[in-house]
């Protein structure tokens, strides 16, 4: 239909050539940590309005900039003609097609920008131009369906007085009071920005109806995580009139979308069908005029991760987490049985749907690529990108397999097992059990490029890696997930030990060479495991809890913790004994396993003080522990040198204490 943007295609050609050759097995080598970090990551695929092209973001490790660098790429809907379309040294994100398909909006911080701004790239040729000069970073970009404006969310700007005081370092601030509402704005193509909604609320998200006449949005009392349960769905006309509240409850609605005819709203909430909090996320539909919300498939065991109306308005498609894998489903909007559109050992993410069908990122054991499913009941699946062909060509990889076992109460537990690259049946291997965060999440097939798992690097060194979906995980029904209530460490730690026993009994794992590791809730669990058994020879705990009572106040959110622990530490007759008994630090004297603790200095979720408590609880009792702290880092490390350091330190710790081997730290490439 139209010419492609006049951009360079060298990268694409190089990758296409690389993908064709298959190296003989003997020249393949184990993946290193750097290899893991260097795997390109495709996210945010966006299909053009005519359904013929796909724009997406590709992240690649930029060791000089010390971060993953995002750039925009485009390709045909069949994956042909892939090429990079933006090149600024600080990167670009959020490609959004204009309704006429002639312009691609995106977000970037370029020359002279204090914060990222919206840019417009004409697809018929020419460079991108800056559209906004907003004082705060615009996010959640969306074109109005008439193509006359782009709507976005952005925090209110500090006042002139606030800026002056910040500049003078007259900057004492008050906890929980130093936030700004996130506002809804629209900018016309001349760059004139106007605020769409005013009032004492934060706009958490918004979406247009298909005809652009209405806007569904979610309003929260503030952007603070603690206020999320008080956010609700609203609908209004696109001119700002006719504001109407759709929901009024104590759970956080997300992913709200108007039906094509504008009469109904779908949304997701981590709630029961009766809108009680802390359940697997469900899909709800409510009348756009208000009224009760109805859960579709109220009794499904899985967790709905994302949902969208099909163009006919009679069907809703969604991605559901089924534990070790996720799949795409369709369900009649009026209710009824769902039908799976995909199957396989994979995790689906970054899903978009439309008249073109579905696009998503599909993660498998050794790759994560963009795929398209054609529309219709039997729509064909097609892989669009081949970013990771080189991985299986160049590297020795660990096979992934679902395993299942019984918890001590007979409940079936699943996990994903990654085998050593040189696996020989009949041989026992050292086993690392890696517990996921959340705990309201699940570990799935894939994660090949996750530098906190470094699965294939482990596999290459001869480790089995078990990622158990212990009690508290999502995708296995509400009773399974809600086992963590009223005590937190109820069955989850026993589920992990039972999984280890299972692999020992199966002749796979060497019981004398066990290690445990995990981040966040996986760190909580690792801390717990080392207090209850000496079976682990080494353990790594990232951003885990030491003391629930102190974490309760320290963290930026408390919403789940009341439920986990049956109360807070400052209410009358507080359950302090329960809080302390469930705190790994209280049993620090029992720890015999050498424990490596990792945390970011700026972690707001499980602040570094928790790691300090755990560290001292172990070392003051004569145990072996080391606490590594990453300056500037939040709950998850993002700076590449920090990411590499935590993996180096982790591998060194396990090699040393579980296997008695020395380890040489991998260097940053290019040094």
């Amino acid at each position, binding site marked *: 239909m139209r010419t492609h943007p006049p951009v360079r295609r060298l990268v694409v050609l190089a990758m296409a050539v690389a993908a064709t050759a298959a190296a003989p097995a003997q020249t393949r080598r184990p993946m290193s940590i750097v290899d893991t970090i260097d795997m390109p990551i495709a996210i945010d695929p966006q299909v053009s309005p005519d359904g013929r092209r796909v724009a997406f973001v590709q992240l690649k490790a930029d060791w000089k900039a*010390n971060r993953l660098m995002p750039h925009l790429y485009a390709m045909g809907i069949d994956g042909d003609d892939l090429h990079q379309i933006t090149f600024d040294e600080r990167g670009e994100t959020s490609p959004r097609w204009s309704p006429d398909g002639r312009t691609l909006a995106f977000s970037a911080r370029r020359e002279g920008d204090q914060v990222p701004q919206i840019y417009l790239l004409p697809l018929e040729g020419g460079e991108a131009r800056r559209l906004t000069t907003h004082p705060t970073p615009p996010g959640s970009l969306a074109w109005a369906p008439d193509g006359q404006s782009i709507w976005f969310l952005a925090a209110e700007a500090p006042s002139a*007085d606030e800026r*002056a*005081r910040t500049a*003078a*370092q*007259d*900057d*004492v*601030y*008050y*906890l*929980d*009071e130093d936030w700004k509402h996130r506002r809804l704005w629209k900018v016309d193509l001349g760059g004139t920005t106007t605020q769409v909604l005013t009032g004492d609320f934060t706009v958490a998200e918004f979406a247009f109806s298909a005809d652009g006449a209405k806007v569904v949005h979610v309003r929260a009392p503030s952007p603070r995580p603690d206020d999320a349960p008080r956010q609700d769905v609203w609908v209004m006309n696109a001119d700002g009139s006719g504001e109407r509240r759709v929901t009024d409850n104590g759970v956080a609605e997300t992913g709200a979308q108007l039906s094509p005819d504008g009469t109904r709203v779908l949304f997701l909430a981590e709630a029961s069908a009766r809108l009680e909090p802390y359940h697997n996320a469900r899909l709800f539909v409510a009348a756009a005029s208000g009224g009760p919300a109805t859960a579709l498939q109220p009794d499904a065991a899985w967790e709905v991760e994302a949902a969208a109306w099909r163009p006919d308005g009679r069907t809703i498609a969604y991605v559901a987490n089924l534990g070790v894998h996720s799949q795409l489903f369709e369900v009649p909007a009026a209710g009824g049985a769902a039908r799976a559109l995909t199957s396989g050992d994979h995790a689906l993410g970054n899903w978009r749907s439309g008249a073109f069908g579905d696009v998503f990122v599909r993660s498998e054991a050794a790759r994560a690529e963009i795929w398209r499913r054609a529309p219709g009941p039997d729509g064909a699946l097609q892989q669009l990108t081949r970013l990771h062909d080189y991985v299986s060509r160049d590297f020795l990889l660990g096979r992934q397999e679902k395993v299942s076992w019984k918890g001590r109460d007979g409940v079936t537990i699943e996990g994903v097992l990654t085998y050593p690259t040189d696996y020989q049946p009949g041989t026992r291997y050292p086993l690392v059990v890696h517990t996921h965060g959340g705990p309201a999440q699940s570990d799935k097939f894939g994660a090949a490029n996750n530098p906190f798992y470094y699965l294939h690097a482990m596999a290459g060194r001869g480790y089995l890696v078990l990622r158990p979906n212990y009690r508290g995980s999502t995708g296995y029904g509400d009773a399974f997930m809600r086992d963590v209530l009223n005590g937190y460490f109820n069955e989850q730690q026993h589920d992990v030990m039972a999984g280890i026993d299972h692999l020992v009994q199966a002749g796979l794992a060497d019981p004398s060479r066990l290690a445990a590791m995990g981040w966040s809730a996986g760190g909580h669990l690792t801390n717990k495991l080392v207090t209850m058994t000496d079976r682990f020879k080494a353990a790594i705990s990232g951003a885990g809890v*030491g*003391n629930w*009572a*102190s974490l*309760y*106040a*320290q963290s930026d959110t408390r919403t789940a913790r009341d439920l986990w622990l049956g109360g*807070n*530490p*400052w*209410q*009358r007759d*507080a359950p*302090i004994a329960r809080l*302390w008994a469930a705190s790994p*630090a*209280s*049993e*620090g*004297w029992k720890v015999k396993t050498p424990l490596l603790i990792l945390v970011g200095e700026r972690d707001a979720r499980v*602040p570094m*003080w928790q790691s*300090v*408590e755990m*560290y*001292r*609880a172990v070392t*003051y*009792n004569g145990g072996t522990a*080391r*606490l*590594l*702290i*990453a*300056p*500037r880092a939040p709950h998850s490390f993002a*700076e590449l*040198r*920090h990411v590499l*350091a*935590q993996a180096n*330190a982790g591998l060194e710790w396990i090699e040393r204490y579980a296997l008695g081997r020395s380890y040489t730290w991998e260097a*940053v490439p290019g040094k």
Partner: protein
Amino acid sequence: MRTCTRTLLAVLALAGLALQPAGAQDKRPLTFVEAIEIPSVQDPQISPDGRQIVFVMDQADWKANRRVQHLYRIGADGTGQVQLTFGERGESSPRWSPDGRHIAFLARRDSDQHNQIYLLPADGGEARRVTTHPTAPGSLSWSPDGSAIYFVAADALSPEAREKRRLQDDVYAFEEDNFEQRHLWATDLDGKTRAITSGRDFSVLDYTVSMDGKRVAMMRAPSPLLEHGRFAEVWVMDLDGQNAVRLTTNEIRESNPQLSPDGSQVLFTADANAQFESYHNDKIFLVPAAGGPARVATPSAASYEVENATWSKDGRSIYFTANHGVHNQVMRLDPATGQSTALTTGDHMISSWSYADAAGAFVFTRSGADRPSEVYLLGADGGTARRVTAVHDALVNRVKVARQERITWKGKDGQTVEGLLFYPVDYSPGQRYPLVVWTHGGPAASDKFNFSSEAQVYAGRNIAVLKPNYRGSTGYGDAFLRDMVKGYFKNAHLDVLLGADAVIAMGVADPDRLLKTGWSAGGHMTNKIITFTDRFKAAVSGAGAANWISMYAQSDHRAFRTPWFGGTPWQQNAPIDLYWDHSPLKDAWKVRTPTLFLVGEADPRVPMPQSVEMYRALKYNGVTTRLGIAPREGHGWQELRHKLHELNARMDWLVTHGLKGTYTWEQVPGDNGAPRPTTTASQ
């Protein structure tokens, strides 16, 4: 002797102000801005001939947002005060050379990356840089022959470590590699340095060169971290690096190690008893320099706390200063008889004390109820100290100074407790006033007579201030201090409340207008008090503890806390009930008092999460509360704008919530009309 014109003008200007004493009726209360602008006089040093004193005086530099120190010199007779240095970043630590011809000092000038040692000719001419050390020298002292200056400095980072830091390849191992060891160095006057100690396995925390210049007594610890202070030990060695001998092995932190003039003994001070158990009032210890058991040298009946100590030139006396609760004094100990006697008397606080053996005199700063710190001289035989400087004449002539009085009352168990009462400046007998009960930090410390500029501002608004030396304070004997052992809040909070009752009984305080504040341990106390009683109408708690369990790990040291609770919270059969029962958080649901919390974001001692725990507890329970956090600040707020914010916010909260009054924030000089934050309630 020369002075420069600028200095003369400055001195004349000061003198001119001082010449016009305001009548009492013209005097007005002190403001917070004035309080911050009061220059602080520190670190006086007598010249070897006893005729001159150099000292450090700072001033508030609002533009730089910090205090800037400069060196001054004054005749021992109080005449001829001149400013000696004028560097933009300031100067500190003046030290006379033994021949009196040079003054060494520390400054960061021009291209310096950090402080270096500079040398100023005493008889005129500019200072010159002596060292170009890769890290900042500190703890300067001259060799007795004047050929070298000793200093302590951290080890330099290796080039690899510097490069990793530059690249932000900077994940660090907590309390393993996030410090550099500190070692003793010497430099000659041309800047040629040599290391006297070195190595990765210890730091030199404190040292004193022997009078003959051949040996040095020092304190070595596994690291410079407070956490490892309990492993500090006293060592002696030759200054050529030979014959290092460790003299102590215990779990107390020693200070002030000094060889006797004959080299036979080493004195040190430590907060221990004769059995080397820590958490006692500091005492003087003596240990044979050749090795052998150390013994307590101060009298066993002494109730005072030793602050600092030094040998007399003949070795027959040990001079020291001692805290007696609401005052401290210069004292003499006869090591032969074990008897101690006070060389001074009076209601004052002595600081920056030193004994100059060449001049045979003591020099120190002294503050009292009537004026901030000035430099004083005292002969080695004691008697009346003579004031040398008159820095604050203009101030005390200009402002209404509060009457300050020592009061005593009985604790619940009959124990006598002391405190300082600041009367409202317009006090008239028979009238009752609001009372701020202001508890000191430590808690192993005491409030002493001194100018207390912030309390002066409250008195200036006709609010009385009580500073109680509650149980746990130093200077009142070990039993008084150790009341907190095995349970922090046994008598301490009751002492504070009974002190308020005493001021009510005096007819001074209005029982319906009681206010509470304190910082650090004074914040712990404030947190406890609001959970214990509703008598206080408003409270401001700075850097206080909420939860002793989490606090135990978070803080940069645990030295006091182990005795308070009798173990760690993580040991087998931990005394966890004691930890929790004494945690203010436990009773947070009882709080009704509107409370403002303040804390520095980088506080290593009572870290910010303690204030967050207390704040969230009150917020959750519907109590009026706020938590103000100062970026970049440690345990005490230093940046001038933060400091003024703290003073404004505290007054605003207490006046608004406690007295239903109004308060207008004082502005930073030069910030014309910019709107200021208000601490008005948010529910």
